């Protein structure tokens, strides 16, 4: 089963997202990176993340934009600059509908965005969308 990488520094938001994924009956394993640097380390298999069996490359990154150390949009830029991560879907989590982050997300190659917290419905929709795209 393919892995989802959730990049989110707020514990509460991690909790709500996990709940929503469960409620949406999405069975994929979820790994959490608590800041931008951890996300980069995870994706590049650096340090504690060297073991790909334990920390497999995700097919989907749920990316919060307000992160310590490396900001979400920089993580997105970093991912899109590496051809080996071409297949990774990036869904951005923003806190406001009007954030100029949304236009930036599109510009930098993000695939989706959600206003936090994403509802069960939105997540089901996303998974259905991805399944269609992947098959």
């Amino acid at each position, binding site marked *: 089963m393919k892995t989802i990488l959730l990049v989110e520094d707020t514990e509460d938001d991690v909790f709500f997202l996990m709940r929503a994924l469960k409620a949406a009956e999405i069975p994929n394993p979820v790994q959490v990176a608590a800041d931008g640097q951890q996300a980069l380390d995870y994706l590049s298999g650096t340090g504690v993340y060297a073991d790909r069996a334990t920390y497999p490359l995700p097919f989907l990154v749920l990316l919060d934009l307000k992160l310590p150390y490396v900001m979400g949009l920089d993580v997105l830029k970093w991912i899109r600059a590496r051809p080996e991560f071409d297949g990774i879907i990036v869904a951005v989590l923003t806190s*406001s509908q*009007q954030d100029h982050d949304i236009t930036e997300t599109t510009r930098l190659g993000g695939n989706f965005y959600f206003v936090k917290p994403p509802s069960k419905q939105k997540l089901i929709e996303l998974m259905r969308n991805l399944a269609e795209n992947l098959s």
Partner: protein
Amino acid sequence: MIEPRVNILMVDDEPANLIALEATLEELGQNLIRAKSGTEALRQLLDKDFAVILLDIQMPGLSGIETAAAIRERERSRHIPIIFLTGMDKTQEAMFEGYSAGAVDYLLKPIQTNVLIAKVGVFIELAQARQRLHQEVEERTKTAVEISMLNQALEDKNRELESRTAELQDTVQELERYSYSISHDMRAPLRAMKGYADVLIEEAATTLNDEHRGFLQKISSASQRLDRLIEDVLSYSLLSRSKFNLKSVDADELLREIIEQYPGFQPPEVDIRIEGKLPVVWANEATLTQCISNLLGNAIKFVPKGTQPKIVIRADVHDKETTLWIEDNGIGIDAHDLDRIFGIFVKVHSATSYAGTGIGLSIVRRAAEKMGGQVGVESTLGKGSRFWLKLKTP
């Protein structure tokens, strides 16, 4: 204008002649100064200016001709006209000598008083004219200096104002950034409050009594209200800080899209009708969307309980300006509230009858202004309102 008195120097070794001259010239009303010799005349010329010098030629010591030559040599007195007074017949030679020493005229003794007065009068006028000119030049120079000083002061003031304006702008910008970032950060804990309350409502419902379930519901809806408020403040502050690209926007297409896509803008809940085809306007698409959806949202919200909102949208197109009209069948606005409703945090209804943040119309106004437009309203209490949005025609 009163002319200043000028000095006239009379030089003669005969006191009787001096008295006679003085008696003649008195009527001209100037300062008459006597000198009994060429030397004394030269002394007078050291510290005074004269309009004319009447100079006897035949004097012991320095003769009139010698005195005139000395006067001409001095820078200070070089320009002063000299009239020679002579008792002898003027020979060709004496005249030549006199003129080359700087005389401007001759008068033969015995002196004819009317001729003397006429000739001296001319030089008085000349001196006065020169003085006037001199004064005027001085005054103008003074004025020019004053003007240039005033200009300098003005420039300094201007620079000071400019730098103060720049400082103020920086402060305002900083404040807006600050409030934006605070509002932004307030949403995370708020999200947590609402999230956990909702989890409890879902999962602990059976173990709680009705009253406690009600409290949870209140926590949830209060945090949602606060979240909406913050969202509106953010939009408002974002509108103030941002610069937009304005371009031609097809209002018809945009409005139909808004009505189709926004939840709660479709029948049977509401009846929104667009009359005719709306024109192309000069706007920013996202900002215009915000304006229209706020106006439509209000039109739908402010109806008497149980009434289906009926909204008609139409446009007046002129050469330079397009007015979009949004007419509703709502509760209308009291005449004395018409001016207030576009202000920030203004609510004219109680929170229980019509809930809102009081920012919606301020956003519309600021958005309209940012697009070079205007917003306003006509209304009859109890019958409905007609909001208008004026935008430039591209």
